[in-house]
């Protein structure tokens, strides 16, 4: 906790630019998974809750810390699992399907989705 506030601010500003730039061209087809995936990422607050519970003194702080760890675990575990489930379905899978007229190519579908 000895790090200068300016360094933290700098990191904040740079991370904001990175987040903004990276997401700026995502296609609408991915809005839902992206929302859910970023939701999982902020579950990393779990790391903070662990540190807090580790340092907690007295019952109040311990209870708050315990609750925090519990909630953060829900967020991070649930977030990544649900996103994965969603994305798992996001693929061309002509093989699972009843016979289709032509051997439908896999790539065009995905390529079209990006455009």
């Amino acid at each position, binding site marked *: 906790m000895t790090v200068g506030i300016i360094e933290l601010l700098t990191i904040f500003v740079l991370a904001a630019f990175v987040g903004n730039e990276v997401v700026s061209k995502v296609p609408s087809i991915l809005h*839902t998974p992206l929302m859910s995936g970023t939701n999982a990422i902020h579950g*990393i607050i779990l790391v903070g809750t662990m*540190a807090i519970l580790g340092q*907690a003194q007295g019952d109040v702080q311990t209870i708050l810390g315990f609750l925090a760890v519990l*909630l953060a675990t829900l*967020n991070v575990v649930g977030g*990544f*699992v649900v996103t994965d489930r969603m994305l798992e379905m996001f693929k061309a899978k002509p093989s699972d399907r009843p016979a289709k007229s032509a051997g439908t190519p896999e790539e065009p579908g995905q390529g079209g989705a*990006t455009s």
Partner: protein
Amino acid sequence: MSLLTWVDLVYLLAAIGFILALKGLSSPKFARQGNMLGAGAATLAIAMTFTIPSVRHAGSRLILMVVAMIIGTAIAVPAARRVKMTAMPQMVAIFNGVGGGAAALVSMTAFLILTSHDSFTGKPAVYKIVEVILGILIGCVSFSGSAIAFIKLQELITGRPITYPAQQVINAFVGIAIVGLAVATVLTANVALLVVMSVLALVLGVIFVLPIGGADVPVLISLLNSFTGLAVAASGFSLGNNLLIIAGTLVGASGILLTRMMSKAMGRSLANVLFSAFGSVVTASGGADGAGADARPVKVGTPEDIGVLMAYARKVVIIPGYGLAVAQAQHTARELADLLTERGVEVFYAIHPVAGRMPGHMNVLLAEANVPYDELKEMDEANPELATADVALVVGANDTVNPAANNTPGSPIYGMPIIHADLAQHIVFLKRSMRPGFAGIDNELLYDPKTTMLFGDAKDTLTKLVAAVKSA
């Protein structure tokens, strides 16, 4: 290098992992790998956290920690595995809310630790308190706001905008009270003031979300997601933890952008989504639409007519909308499409970016029903094809095919891009009534001579159509 430096290095690695995960999630090809990379980065960071002395030597609190994590995992995994794809928005809302809650609790405990430690050296630095307050405020709003969003989407309360007398006055009062308490807390570092402020922040989350209509809630969730990110970043400031700052800010910044992109896809401004009820009180039922609707004749078809029409068509375009999600008719729609394909009819789905209950949601629903990618076309790709389609089968969609968006300046949806069902030879609407869609405006296309209506719940009518096509 000391152990703590190693921890910090691993945290930096995890942060890089999150950035790459976000890059992956932004492209359809690498989305799944991206998510897995993110999960890996999180696991790494969590494992490393166990080596920090204050955690490692926390004794009974270490046990509590592990217990909390086991309970959390035991709840989260089955919930995430079993949730229906149609209930995705609720699920995201709840995971987001707990994250916000955790961030608020971290900031709160950090405040307690801060004030108890510094009791001998005097008041802690102002900016430390400001960081804590920001974390608590944003986290609490996100927590209670997400909870209300969940309740709305789960239809435990009405999805309609909830308004009550003196709403503005109450909002203003809560807002001013929070600001006042925040300033007082900064000046006095008093715990009681902080607790009252936290409670009011929870209230603020509730009254912020109540007036927002059900169909706008997904956009709201994206915004609250962004809030939680910022709350996590604020906790990162309190704890001097770079990983939390980076991960939180990434989510905060990308969430805000995503929210704006969603509003844009709906042809509206973010402010409009959040602060106007957008006439959806009028929408839901009765009133103006009944009058306008009944005045003019519409063509109503039987399932058999329409079954024959489709069975002998060359190209059928299915345009799914919010109603398909509500009726959970995606599997039946797929059955119909398969049947038609087997008969040699060319079938594909035309997906509007804001069809369904949340942006991109229709893709997820249809993917769940095993509809392969190559049958889904995005709006821009589908529109040129519609001119050569024999039948446009509009299943529970309305606003997203309403020509008023193109040719009626002043209409609330004017300017929103639509799917051009009107270009097809025949248009079939599967809906329950003549009631308008979310935007609450009449749809001229329902009265078009080319249009046939088939009233009823989408799942029922689709089942009937399947039978009709089979016997055609």
